[in-house]
C-alpha cells in the first residue's frame, strides 16, 4: 500500500501502525484481558490453556510463553499492551524494556543511570 512509512528505516524500532495493529489484534486484546485480576489468575494457573481461548497464531502464543517481547512486537504486539504481561509477572517496565536489548538487567539499569542509550545508536555497535 502506498502509505508513507518514513519511520520504517529507524533501527531497532517498530512503529505500531494499522498494518501492525491488524496483525497483532488478538495478541493485544489478550494482553488487555490481563487488566482483570481473575484473568491474571487464570493465565498464571495455565498459560497455554488461557492463550488457547484466544484466536492468536501459534507463533504469537509461543512468543508470549517465552516472554520474547521482540518477537511479540514483530508479530503485531504493541508495548503498551504487552506491558500487561509484565505487570502480571510482577516485572517493572525497566525489566521489560531491558529484556529486548540483549543486555543484562544490571547493565541496562547502569546504562540508564549513565544517561541512557545515545540517539546516535545504529544497532551495529554491538557487532564491533
Amino acid at each position, binding site marked *: 500500500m502506498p502509505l508513507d512509512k518514513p519511520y520504517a528505516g529507524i533501527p531497532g524500532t517498530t512503529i505500531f501502525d494499522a498494518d501492525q495493529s491488524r496483525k497483532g489484534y488478538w495478541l493485544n486484546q489478550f494482553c488487555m484481558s490481563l487488566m482483570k485480576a481473575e484473568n491474571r489468575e487464570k493465565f498464571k494457573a495455565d498459560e497455554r490453556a488461557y492463550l488457547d481461548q484466544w484466536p492468536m497464531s501459534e507463533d504469537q502464543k509461543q512468543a508470549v510463553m517465552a516472554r520474547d517481547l521482540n518477537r511479540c512486537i514483530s508479530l503485531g504486539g504493541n508495548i503498551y499492551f504487552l506491558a500487561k504481561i509484565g505487570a502480571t509477572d510482577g516485572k517493572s517496565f525497566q525489566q521489560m524494556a531491558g529484556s*529486548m536489548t540483549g543486555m543484562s538487567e544490571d547493565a541496562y539499569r547502569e546504562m540508564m543511570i549513565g544517561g541512557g*542509550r545515545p540517539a546516535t545508536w545504529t544497532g551495529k555497535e554491538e557487532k564491533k
Partner: protein
Amino acid sequence: MARITASVYTSHVPAIGAAMDLGKTQEPYWQKVFSGYDFSRQWIKANKPDVVFLVYNDHATAFSLDIIPTFAIGTAAEFAVADEGWGPRPVPKVEGAPELAAHIAHSVIQQDFDLTIVNRMDVDHGLTVPLSLMCGQPREWPFKVIPFAVNVVQYPVPSGMRCFRLGQAIRKAIESFDEDLNVQIWGTGGMSHQLQGPRAGLINKEWDNRFLDRLVEDPEGLAGVNHIEYVKEAGSEGIELVMWLIARGAMADVAGGPKPTVKHRFYHVPASNTAVGHLILENKQ
C-alpha cells in the same frame, strides 16, 4: 469568566507512581527525580486551580484496539483509577468537571475538531502520575480534572501542528465559559524514551532540552516538527511530547497576549527508562 492561569508540563512515567505508592521517594535514585517537584508542590498550593484540563495518553487501558479515538474528552462526574495489570494505584478517584467539559466539547467541535465524548473511562498512570507529582499523596485531589486523552499508540497520531491548533481552540472554549474559574492546562508524557526493541533505553538530552527551549520561545515553530523526527531523536515513545503542544497552544501569547513567565524548569535522567522533563508557565495576570 473562566481563565487559563498557567500550564504545567511533565513526564508521567509509571515507575514514578510506583515509587510513591511503595514509599521509595527517599531513596537516592528517586530523590533526584522528586527534588524537581519540590517547587511545584509549593507553587500549586499557592496557585490552586479550580479545574485542571489534563492532556495525557491512554496506554491501552481505557481504549483497546476495539476503539481508538484520536482525541477523547472526559465529560463524566468522576473517573475511576484503572487496574493496569498490578491492581489500581492507591490514589483518590478523579473528580470531573462535567459542565465545563461539555462546554469545551461543544465549543471545540464547533471549531472543527472532531472530538470523541467519553462518559465512562478509567484513567491510567498517564493521568494519575502527574497528579501525584504535583500534589503528593492527599486524601483527595485538591481540584477537579477534565481528562483529555490523545491517541499516541497507533499511527498516525495527530501532528504537532494539529495539537497546537487544538490548544488554541481549547483556550477559546474555556474563556467563553461564564463561571469564574481558575483553570490550568497540563501537557504530559515524554520526554525522550523508547520502551521497545533493541533500541530501548534511548535518551537524547540535547534534543529534549532544545524541545524545552523551543516550547517556551517558539512553540509554533516547534509544532512544525514531524513525527519522524520525534521517533528518530526522542525514541518511539518520545512521540508523547506532541501532547505538550496542546497545553502550550492554550497559553495567552499564542492568542496575541503577553509571553508567559517560566516559573520552573527541571530536567533529569533517568526515571526508569525515561528522561524526566518538567516546566511551569504562568500567564501574566
